[in-house]
């Protein structure tokens, strides 16, 4: 396993590990802004809503004689159905008396149910066809092509670049949207941009970590980072760091120990990051609290 951590397990394993790290950096950073905007659970609905799109994209590609596992095609399907889920979510919140938490649960479970229906249908079509698709439930780095890794890593870098450009308005809209409006910044557009970035990392993440668990990468690093600092910029950096470390570590461990599900390991590592923060963070952690009490 040490070899895996030192990136000496072979070219492919190294590539996957670095790709997972880039993904972790991006999801950690996006998650920090979501946390500030108090919308941490929206990606839960969006991630679960990707599944029917993945299934449909698979069927469409197979119907056209393709392999059915072409990642960009699957992610396109995932993106469309995720946006549809987001649209339904907003429609429920604005158009009915249902509260947002109920709307999230509704979109999450019904879209996922539809995805399961499609998945079981595909399973019924013939053994082996669905193998790649199940990887979207819980993630897997096994069988990832080099191009897939480039896509994920490249996407992660693009997301980080976009966040860097938008960082000031994202913080302003999260902190005081009314004031932002008066300054000429439009909260609706900034929120839409944030949701687009969330969609991007969800799509990138479902392949590595799976749809169910990707939301952990968007929440836990931010919660952990909050405990270390009162400065927004530092919080975003720490959150990205925790995500990146978990991505790196999880992929490395998963490569070294076959059968270890990547997504679950990465989630376990970000949680470990939270526990460490809860204990050791100087201001809000347990140790800091005890020291002040003494």
């Amino acid at each position: 396993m040490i070899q895996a951590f030192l990136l000496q397990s072979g070219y492919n394993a190294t590539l996957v590990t670095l790709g997972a790290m880039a993904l972790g950096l991006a999801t950690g950073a996006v998650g920090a802004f979501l946390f500030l905007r108090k919308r941490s659970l929206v990606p839960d609905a969006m991630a679960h809503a990707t599944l029917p799109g993945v299934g449909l994209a698979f069927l469409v590609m197979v119907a056209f004689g393709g392999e059915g596992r072409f990642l960009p095609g699957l992610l396109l399907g995932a993106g469309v159905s995720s946006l549809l889920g987001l649209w339904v979510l907003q429609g429920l919140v604005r158009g009915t008396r249902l509260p947002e938490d109920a709307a999230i649960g509704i979109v999450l479970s019904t879209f996922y149910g539809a995805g399961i229906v499609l998945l079981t249908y595909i399973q019924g079509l013939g053994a082996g066809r669905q193998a790649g698709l199940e990887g979207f439930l819980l993630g897997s780095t096994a069988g990832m092509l080099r191009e897939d890794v480039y896509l994920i890593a490249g996407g992660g870098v693009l997301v980080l670049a976009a966040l860097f450009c938008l960082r000031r308005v994202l913080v302003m809209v999260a902190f005081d949207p009314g004031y932002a409006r008066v300054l000429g910044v439009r909260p609706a557009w900034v929120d839409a941009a944030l949701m687009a970035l969330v969609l991007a990392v969800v799509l990138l993440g479902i392949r590595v970590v799976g749809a169910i668990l990707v939301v952990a990468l968007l929440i836990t690093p931010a919660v952990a980072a909050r405990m270390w600092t009162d400065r927004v910029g530092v919080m975003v950096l720490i959150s990205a760091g925790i995500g990146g470390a978990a991505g790196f570590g999880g992929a490395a461990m998963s490569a070294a120990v076959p059968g270890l599900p990547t997504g679950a390991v990465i989630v376990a590592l970000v949680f470990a990051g939270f526990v460490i923060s809860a204990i050791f963070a100087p201001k809000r952690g347990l140790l800091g609290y005890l020291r002040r009490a003494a």
Partner: protein
Amino acid sequence: MTVALAFDHLSVLYGAVTAVDQVTAEIPMGAMTAIVGPNGAGKSTLLKAALGVVPKASGEARFFGTSLDEARAKVAYMPQRASVDWDFPIRVIDVVLMGMQRALGLLRPVRAADRAFAMDCLARVELTDFAKRQIGALSGGQQQRVFLARALAQRAQLYLLDEPFAGVDAKTEAAIVRVLQGLRDEGAAVVAVHHDLASVPVWFDRVLLLNRRLIAAGPVAAVFTPDALRETYGGALPPLQAA
């Protein structure tokens, strides 16, 4: 007299209720103008409608002769009660820097000169010692002053303040008055929605008497009379010192 802000038959409706009724008035540069009236008179609403925070039913507000979008760089706003999350991980100096967003844009890095200017704004509201504190660690009056510093950081020529003195202690009140008068002396237009009638003739140059519609507008000496006040407040007046 240069006009900073002109209301032209501005009306606002909340459902079927007329909150602001065809208000026409001018706010000049180089003066401190108070907007006074009873509760529910539409004072805050008037400002918010002019700024586009709430929708207008009819009429318009002209800023320096043009629309708000073209004049945004010259207009600063301090809202009534900042309804923010006081646990937000942000420091006092960062809130002030937010006021400089238009100048900074998306990508230009924050330079030493920018930081120095932000500290200068904090100095004017007497909060330099608190620059690096998280906003939740401040008292109510101090938080109010942070948001005033944010408005100052905009380097505007028109300052719209909604109840800047509400709920602050005497020391903070004195500090804020000093700042506002300083802005006026530099030539800016300062408009404040204000509730304390006794201080109007002491601090302000001009006044707008509002009770959904405009009762009177002009210099304090001319307009701030018992008759006009009676008409604005429609009955028993709060205790007043003799003008």
